[in-house]
């Protein structure tokens, strides 16, 4: 179905994605192939060769021979290839063309000029198969990330392609949404589709994948069949820089510590306009100070609302935070806290990394700014424009700015979405280091592995209420695992 013979590719210009070297890969019809490896290993590049975005959209030097369903993607137009290959991308926010879900599902077929009657039939079929009826005819901007990704999968299903290419589809999803993504992929597998997935999270795919391709610096260095896959030990995976195949293999590595100081939250209530029930309703909550605190819960449990109220972003929230014997109201909390956002692009304002840090400082002194950069391991990037950094580096700049502003509460919103093992571990040790510097760290995360690496305390929310809270120890660890494995 897909043949790559001695293919090499180099991007032209400043591209963060790495090229490929001497790739030989033959994928049979109906195979489910997982591409994995550390960030920048070339797996995304490989998906782009198959869906034709290379060389049509991303220009570069391409040598060797690519054949997809008997055709050479470089020689035919993208719209022709679109009839054979359907793609789902990493970011649910930016792969939509329409503003309405049903219109989005029809988009691919409309481009092929298919009769409206047939499009309707196909949409109805897909809606049945993938259970999308609740999402039909909705405003896409009102959907959650998981729901958006479902619509993305639904839209390519409607085009009835033979090959599906998914580039890190689970990056921005929570555990429930990942479960549903797994069901969609397994449906395609049953229907005999050829599926290629580039992914960091491996656990949800371990039962579906027939073949596992490991890439390092643009080369294929491992090609395993499903049977062999199960024999790879966690230690070996760790060495390969890969996430585990099963959440059960994750071990608690965060060091237990005794914290005596406390933060107390009082009267944290919040209700959105036109909402039936309160998004957040906490009478009193005692949590350890200067610790790494995980906020977990399913979609809509109130995690983000909690973070927004804690940081003082919600004006209607009347809650108080007792901090070092002082009761902090909303404005006082805003001065004491810092939110590292999921999309770090929103919080970088200046022309160089060092300016970014100086901007946060009460007394801007370059030497001190450099010290913060050194602490985050990005000193050599001091004069670089933030735009040219990788996602992980941008995140570090944002954290350095938080340090520079001398804030005591730092909240992280999904800091490891789409990160490989190495980068995830780097974030984990960064969080631990911050807590050691007398900062209280809050982490909203669906990444069980991250929490196992660095968390001291867990708060579980459900319908805006705290349903569980416990120190993370070897005794309580199974409880955390149970939440993620259901």
């Amino acid at each position, binding site marked *: 179905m897909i043949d790559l013979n001695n293919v090499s590719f180099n991007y032209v210009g400043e591209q963060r994605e790495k090229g490929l070297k001497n790739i030989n890969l033959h994928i049979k019809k109906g195979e489910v192939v997982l591409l994995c490896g550390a960030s920048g290993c070339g797996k995304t590049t490989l998906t782009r060769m198959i869906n034709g975005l290379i060389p049509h959209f991303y220009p570069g030097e391409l040598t060797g021979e690519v054949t997809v369903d008997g055709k050479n993607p470089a020689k035919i137009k993208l719209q022709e290839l679109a009839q054979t290959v359907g793609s789902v991308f990493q*970011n649910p926010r930016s792969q939509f063309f329409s503003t309405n879900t049903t219109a989005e599902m029809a988009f691919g077929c409309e*481009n092929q000029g298919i009769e409206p009657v047939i499009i309707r039939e196909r949409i109805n079929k897909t809606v049945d198969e993938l259970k999308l009826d609740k999402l039909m005819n909705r405003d896409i901007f009102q959907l959650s990330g998981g729901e958006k990704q479902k619509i993305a999968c639904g839209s390519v299903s409607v085009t009835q392609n033979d090959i599906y290419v998914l580039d890190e589809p689970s990056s921005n999803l929570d555990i429930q949404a990942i479960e549903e993504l797994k069901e969609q992929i397994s449906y395609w597998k049953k229907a005999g589709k050829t599926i290629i997935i580039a992914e960091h999270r491996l656990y949800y795919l371990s039962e579906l994948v027939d073949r596992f391709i490991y890439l390092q610096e643009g080369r294929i260095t491992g090609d395993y069949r499903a049977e062999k896959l199960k024999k790879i030990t966690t230690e070996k995976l760790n060495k390969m820089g890969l996430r585990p195949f099963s959440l059960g293999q994750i071990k608690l590595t965060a060091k237990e510590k005794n914290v005596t100081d406390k933060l107390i939250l009082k009267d944290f209530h919040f209700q959105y306009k036109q909402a039936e029930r309160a998004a957040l309703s906490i009478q009193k909550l005692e949590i350890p100070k200067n610790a790494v605190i995980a906020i977990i819960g399913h979609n809509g449990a109130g995690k983000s609302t909690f973070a927004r109220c804690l940081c003082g972003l919600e004006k209607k929230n009347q809650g108080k935070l007792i901090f070092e014997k002082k009761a902090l109201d909303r404005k006082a909390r805003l001065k004491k806290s810092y939110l590292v956002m999921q999309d770090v692009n929103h919080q970088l304002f200046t022309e160089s990394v060092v300016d970014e840090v100086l901007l946060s400082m009460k007394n801007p002194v370059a030497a001190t700014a450099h010290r913060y950069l050194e602490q985050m391991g990005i000193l050599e990037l001091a004069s670089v424009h933030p735009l040219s950094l990788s996602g992980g580096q941008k995140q570090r700049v944002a954290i350095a700015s938080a340090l520079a502003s001398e804030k005591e509460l730092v909240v992280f919103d999904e800091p490891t979405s789409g990160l490989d093992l190495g980068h995830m571990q780097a974030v984990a040790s960064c969080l631990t280091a911050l807590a050691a510097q007398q900062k209280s760290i809050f982490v909203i995360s669906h990444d069980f592995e991250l929490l196992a690496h660095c968390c001291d305390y867990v708060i579980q929310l459900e319908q805006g209420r705290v349903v569980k809270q416990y120190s993370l120890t070897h005794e309580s660890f199974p409880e955390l695992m149970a939440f993620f494995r259901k």
Partner: protein
Amino acid sequence: MTEGKMQLDPRTKLFLLLIANFLLFFHLGVRTEALFVIFLCVLLVLSGKSRTGFLGAVFYVSVLYVSNRVMAHNQTNFWAILGLMITFVEKFFPCILAGFFAFTTTKVSEWIASMQKLHFPRHIIIPLMVLFRFFPTVRADYHHIRNAMKFRGIAVTVFDVIKQPFLTIEYIFVPLLMSATNTALDLSASSLSRGISAPTAHSSYTNVEFQLQDWLVWGSILTIFALYGGR
């Protein structure tokens, strides 16, 4: 869309918008204008926008009433200026109402489908689609950026913004453009991989067709003009 609500063809809504503008530029008498506004209000109610419909009608009638009373006073400067302002509101109201009607009761896909029916070229339709798609994105980005600025202590209060308007704008625009560039790249890759560049005829799943109610609207409007136009 939803049962029990009247659906008009987007072309009819455009026609209403054109008529409203026509009324603004050519004076056809208060009676024609009033009939047109009341007609629009009825259409709003029928299309499920009852609140706006009723409020619009009440507001317009009050404006007409006040305008009459003010005109009777037409002696001093004060009354002249007030009269001018009220007339301004009175004249612009039909346009605002027609615009509101057109843009709140029509989905983007319906606009696109009617543009295709009217044989607009692809190189006009596609940028317009992207534009519609970008408004909500930019709005969401803007809120995130304003929040991020609060944590950095940049332009937190209204006073800060007034004190340093240009700096504030710069701090909003840099991340906004950065984010928009990324979105645009992703969006292009995604839509190209779904065959948007096909030069052949694109079909449209969204069905827009003239129905009885459309003919009735066109008929009523033309009748109003024939009977009262020019008086």
